C-alpha cells in the first residue's frame, strides 16, 4: 500500500520527497503530506473500514505510511458518547462527546498522533524518538516508544509538576529536564533535531505526526452513522488538531465515503491563552503571540504554529472562536463529570464551557448536531481542581455517625 505521493509546502507549493523534513527550504512554510485520492478512492470504502479492527488504523489508506501500521495497534476508536444529560441542560437536541479521555495507552489524543509518528519513524529507519512536551505528548512518546522498542529522549521544562514527571518516567525514557519554559525547550529541541539523527515527533516528523489527528474526524463521521455533524468544537493549542479534523471531513468527501460533509468548526481556548480566538474575533489571520497564563496547561501555546491555518478553517467552515476563564474551565470539567460521568482534563473543560457559551450566544443552533472534542483525561490535571471540589463527609466507624450525616444530606 502507500498512497502518499510526497510532501508539499503549504505556502509556495514546492514539492519534496517523502523524508523526515518539515519546513520548505525556499519560503520556510510548513510541509504537508500529499495523497493520491483517486487511488485511495478505489482502495477503500465504508465496508472495508467497517470490517477492520476498532483502532485508528482502520483508516490506514488516509494515513501517511508506506507499509503496514506498526505502532498503536490499540489506539484510537474511542467512544462517541451521546450526551443526553448535558444536551438537556444546554437546551439542545443532539450533543455528543468524542471521548479521548480513554485513549490507549496514555489517556489523551496524543496517542493517535504518536502512533502515526512512530510508525513513520520506523519506516524511516530511526532507532531513537524524541519530543518536547509539557505532559500528554511526553507520556505518549514514552509509552508507545517503550512498546515499540525505541530509544526515547523526552525534553520537559524543569518546573513541570511531579505527577506529570512520574507518568513519563514509569516508561523509563531518557527524561531531560531543561531549565526554562516550554518555548525554551522547543527552541533547544530544534537545535538538537538538526544535529542528531533522531525522530522528533513534533519537529522533523511533524508533517506525518499531525496527520494522526484526522482520525478523530474520521471516527466522528463513522460513529454518527457515516455522516458529518453540524458543529465540532475543538480545543486549540498549536491549532493543528482543528485543521486536521476539518481535513478529515474534506478527505472523506474527496474519496467518496461521505457525500456531504461541511461541519462548522469552532475553536476553543482559555482566556489566558487565546491568540487564535482573538484573531478569529478580530477577523484577521495575523496571530499576535501572547504569554500564556491559564490553568489549561495543555493548551498553553502562546505562539501557535498552525494558528493562521486554524483561523482560515474556522472562517471557511462558517464556525467561530470562543474563550473561557479559568473558573469557567473548572466549572466545565465539573459539569461534564456530573452530567455525563466523564472526567476530562482542563482542555475538556475548555471545550465544554466554550460550547455552552456558543449555544447561549446563538452561534450553535439548538436543533443541530454538535460534537464536543474532549482530548484528555482529568486524572492527569487533578491539581486544577484543588480546593474546587467539595470535601468528603467524615464519620466515625459506626452506624449512628453515618445516619447523622445521612440526615443532613
Amino acid at each position, binding site marked *: 500500500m502507500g498512497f502518499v505521493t510526497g510532501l508539499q509546502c503549504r*505556502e*509556495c507549493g514546492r514539492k519534496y520527497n517523502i523524508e523526515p523534513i518539515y*519546513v520548505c*527550504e525556499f*519560503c*520556510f512554510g*510548513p510541509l504537508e503530506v500529499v495523497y493520491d485520492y483517486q487511488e485511495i478512492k478505489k482502495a477503500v470504502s465504508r465496508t472495508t473500514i467497517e470490517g477492520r479492527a476498532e483502532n485508528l488504523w482502520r483508516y490506514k489508506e488516509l494515513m501517511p505510511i508506506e507499509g503496514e501500521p506498526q505502532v498503536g495497534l490499540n489506539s484510537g476508536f474511542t467512544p462517541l458518547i451521546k450526551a443526553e444529560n448535558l444536551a438537556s441542560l444546554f437546551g439542545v437536541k443532539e450533543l455528543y462527546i468524542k471521548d479521548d479521555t480513554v485513549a490507549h495507552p496514555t489517556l489523551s489524543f496524543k496517542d493517535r498522533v504518536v502512533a502515526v509518528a512512530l510508525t513513520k519513524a520506523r519506516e524511516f529507519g530511526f532507532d531513537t524518538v524524541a519530543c518536547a512536551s509539557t505532559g500528554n505528548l511526553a507520556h505518549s512518546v514514552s509509552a508507545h516508544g517503550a512498546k515499540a522498542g525505541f530509544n526515547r529522549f523526552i525534553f520537559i521544562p524543569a518546573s513541570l509538576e511531579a505527577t506529570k514527571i512520574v507518568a513519563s518516567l514509569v516508561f523509563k525514557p531518557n527524561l531531560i529536564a531543561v531549565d526554562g519554559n516550554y518555548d525554551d525547550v522547543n527552541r533547544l529541541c530544534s537545535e538538537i533535531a538538526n544535529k542528531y539523527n533522531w525522530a522528533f515527533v513534533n519537529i522533523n516528523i511533524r508533517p506525518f505526526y499531525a496527520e494522526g489527528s484526522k482520525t478523530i474526524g474520521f471516527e466522528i463521521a463513522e460513529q454518527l452513522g457515516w455522516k458529518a455533524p453540524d458543529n465540532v468544537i475543538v480545543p486549540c493549542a498549536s491549532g493543528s488538531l482543528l485543521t486536521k479534523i476539518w481535513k478529515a471531513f474534506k478527505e472523506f468527501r474527496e474519496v467518496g465515503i461521505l457525500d456531504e460533509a461541511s461541519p462548522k468548526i469552532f475553536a476553543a481556548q482559555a482566556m489566558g491563552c487565546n491568540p487564535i480566538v482573538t484573531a478569529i474575533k478580530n477577523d484577521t489571520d495575523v496571530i499576535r503571540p501572547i504569554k500564556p497564563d491559564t490553568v489549561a496547561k495543555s493548551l498553553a501555546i502562546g505562539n501557535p504554529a498552525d494558528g493562521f491555518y486554524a483561523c482560515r478553517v474556522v472562517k471557511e467552515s462558517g464556525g467561530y472562536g470562543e474563550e473561557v476563564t479559568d473558573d469557567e474551565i473548572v466549572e466545565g470539567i465539573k459539569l461534564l463529570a456530573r452530567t455525563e460521568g466523564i472526567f476530562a482534563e482542563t482542555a475538556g473543560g475548555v471545550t465544554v464551557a466554550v460550547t455552552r457559551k456558543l449555544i447561549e450566544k446563538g452561534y450553535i443552533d439548538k436543533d443541530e448536531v454538535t460534537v464536543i472534542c474532549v482530548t484528555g483525561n482529568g486524572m492527569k490535571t487533578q491539581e486544577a481542581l484543588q480546593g474546587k471540589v467539595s470535601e468528603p463527609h467524615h464519620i466515625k466507624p459506626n452506624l449512628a455517625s453515618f445516619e447523622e450525616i445521612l440526615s443532613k444530606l
Partner: protein
Amino acid sequence: MAVKVRIPTPLQRLTDGQEVVEGKPGKIIEMIQDLDSRYPGLAERVSEGGKIRRFVNIYLNEEDIRFLKAEETEVKDGDEVSIVPAIAGGRGNL
C-alpha cells in the same frame, strides 16, 4: 552608520556567509529590495508580491513588524533588523 540586518543561517548562502549585512534606511520592503540588488535572490525568499512571506518573521529592534506597520515600517540608521524563519530548524544549511 546603516541599518544592521541579521540574516538567518539558511539565507547566509546568498550573503556570502555573512551573518550581518548593512541595509538602507527607509521602508522595510524597500530595504529588502535594495538588499536583493546586492544579494540576488534574497527578496524572493523573504517576500512575495511586496508582502513579507507568512512564515518569515522580521523584527525591528526585537518587535515583530506585523505589529508595527508591516512592510511599510520605517527603519533608520542604527536600527537592528532580524530576519527569522517562523519555524525553527529545517535541514541545517541546505
